[in-house]
């Protein structure tokens, strides 16, 4: 028995495709403590969403999953479909990216919350409706009683995502998986929805896995960060450590490509050259080697393991700073993103 609410050990997910076997996830491990917020970042195709779908057994049939996934000390990988149905919604809930499509268009918001409640609890329709109204008020929807009878198309994007959060909270889950919950929303609405999510977490005492490619969202929200690249976790640690002392060139690259409000507009962002490798077949060496400015011989032949960053100051168990880079201890001392070429120079040369 562990105290972790979600524990993933050595997760591997392969997809059989016409082009060959795609290794979407390769040896991902992490633990989530109760009430903890963990952020998973990475660019498109790095395996963020597959990790979250795998952890509640929602992957397509073409996927083969190995490794152990424990939610509340129950093994997801060995569960029957019926046991999974009981687990989903009660112990673990999921929030999807696009609130336009994750609500059923032919039912009212109220119906959908009541449905979620009554799928797992033996309560009357009347009680469920009262509870649904309470949930809607909780996520900050005004005139909740009236709004229960609205259809999804009568809600704005932000309100829909709030309703989705209300549905996710309905059965007091212990873990919420949020797959890019704000990506489809306006920036102003994003902040409101994140605030709603925070309130929801405080009230329900749930832990959260927040998947996003927006580092800004993570910075203000997560306790710990996992950086994923090519189906692996390439760096993990507390938020401050990842942001101020990144120990993997890829993380440096991600941080360097965030526009900041005080940067001069003529300065171009530092970008990571190239694109992620295809995940078909097997590769040797570090998956980031081809794009890495610090690449050495060893990077092309040997894939680095996710190991402790020796120079790190934090050593508390479970949230150690780890990095999958042969030169982590040197990289961690470098100024953020300094190893990537400053593209503003190229830009000015071009214009001459």
């Amino acid at each position, binding site marked *: 028995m562990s105290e972790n609410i979600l524990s993933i050990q050595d997760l591997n997910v392969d997809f059989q495709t016409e082009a060959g076997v795609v290794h979407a996830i390769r040896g991902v491990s992490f633990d989530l403590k109760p009430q903890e917020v963990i952020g998973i970042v990475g660019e498109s195709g790095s395996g963020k969403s597959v990790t979250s779908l795998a952890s*509640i057994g929602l992957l397509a049939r073409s996927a083969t999953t190995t490794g152990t996934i424990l939610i509340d000390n129950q093994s997801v990988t060995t569960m029957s*479909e019926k046991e999974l*149905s009981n687990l989903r919604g009660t112990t673990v809930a999921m929030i999807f990216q696009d609130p336009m499509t994750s609500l059923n268009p*032919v039912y009212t918001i109220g119906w959908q919350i009541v*449905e979620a409640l009554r799928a*797992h609890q033996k309560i009357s329709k009347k009680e469920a409706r009262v509870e649904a109204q309470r949930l809607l008020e909780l996520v900050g929807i005004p005139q909740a009683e*009236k709004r229960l009878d609205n*259809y999804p198309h009568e809600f704005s994007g932000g309100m829909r995502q709030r309703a989705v959060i209300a549905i996710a909270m309905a059965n007091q889950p212990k873990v919420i998986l949020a797959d890019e919950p704000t990506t489809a929303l306006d920036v102003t609405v994003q902040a409101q929805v994140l605030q709603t999510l925070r309130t929801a977490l405080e009230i329900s005492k749930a832990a959260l896995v927040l998947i996003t490619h927006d580092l800004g969202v993570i910075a203000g929200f997560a306790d710990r960060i996992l950086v994923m690249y090519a189906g692996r976790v390439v760096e993990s640690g507390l938020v401050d450590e990842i942001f101020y002392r990144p120990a993997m060139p890829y993380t440096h690259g991600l941080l360097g490509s965030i526009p900041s409000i005080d940067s001069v507009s003529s300065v171009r962002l530092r970008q990571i050259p190239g694109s992620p490798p295809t995940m078909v077949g097997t590769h040797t060496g570090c998956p980031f080697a081809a794009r890495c400015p610090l690449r050495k011989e060893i990077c092309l032949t040997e894939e680095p393991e996710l190991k402790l960053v020796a120079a790190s100051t934090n050593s508390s168990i479970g949230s150690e700073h780890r990095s999958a880079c042969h030169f982590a201890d040197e990289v961690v001392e470098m100024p953020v993103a300094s190893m990537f070429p400053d593209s503003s120079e190229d830009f000015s040369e071009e214009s001459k």
Partner: protein
Amino acid sequence: MKTNVTAETDVKEDTDLDSSGMSGESRSQWALARRRFFHDRLAIFGLIIFSLIIIGSIAEIVLNPSGYQDLTGDYNQAPSWHHLFGTTTIGIDLFSACMKGVLQDLQIALIVSVMSVVLGTTVGALAGYYGGKLDTFLMRLVDLILVVPGLAILIVLSNQISGKGNASLYLAFLLGALSWTYIARLVRAEFLSLRERTFVEAARALGADNRRIIFRHLIPNCIGTITVNATLTIAGAILLESTLSFLGLGLVPPEVSLGMLVQQGEEAATTQWWQFAFPASILLLIILSVFFIGDGLQSALDPRKNRARS
């Protein structure tokens, strides 16, 4: 028909503008659909005609239960106040006979329609949702039924049943067994696209099992398609029954159907025009009005029309 349909969409779009008004009141899917339906002139016209025919036939059967087989002694009378549609060669009041035929046809059509909806929705939903081998098996079954020439089967089998006591019931089941395939195909197609939608995944992530997803989430999303095709099946069944009866293969006297009356009247069409014209017009009116109602329902129930503002 085609021109009617376009004219009707124009009318409907106009009315959509008012119905999408900025009032904060929430209207249910059905209320919205009803509103749109009642703004559709052709659909309303169809509904009125259809209702009048039904009311007329029920009233006639209640007031004059044996009118369709009573020999009045007035042979080959032209339409008059006494005999609204005239009389037949053997002296039966044609109005009574027509109304009896209407009820008979509608009874058959309803059975066919219900059978098609139940069978077609079930088969289509299972095939579309589960896919794979089940889908292949069920759809080949559908293909098999579709390629079998339905009329030939009906002609062979109706010889067997036409003598039996409740021939109309047999005929209805036979027609139903042959006409569910269209709904099955349409429902399957809808399921194929619906099952990939995020809300299905979201429902599953909330712990809904397959049965719950199929019956509570997906079938309600197809209700428009199903309703529309149920009405069209009614029209189709009436037509098919009339065809059979016209060929003398459906029902036989003493049962009455519109097709049978058309066939009997056709012999005298040039001299006693009413014997052909009235049953044929009633048949035409029923089928047209059912089509108009179906078209109206189709536009009214399309959930995409509800997203006036999103």
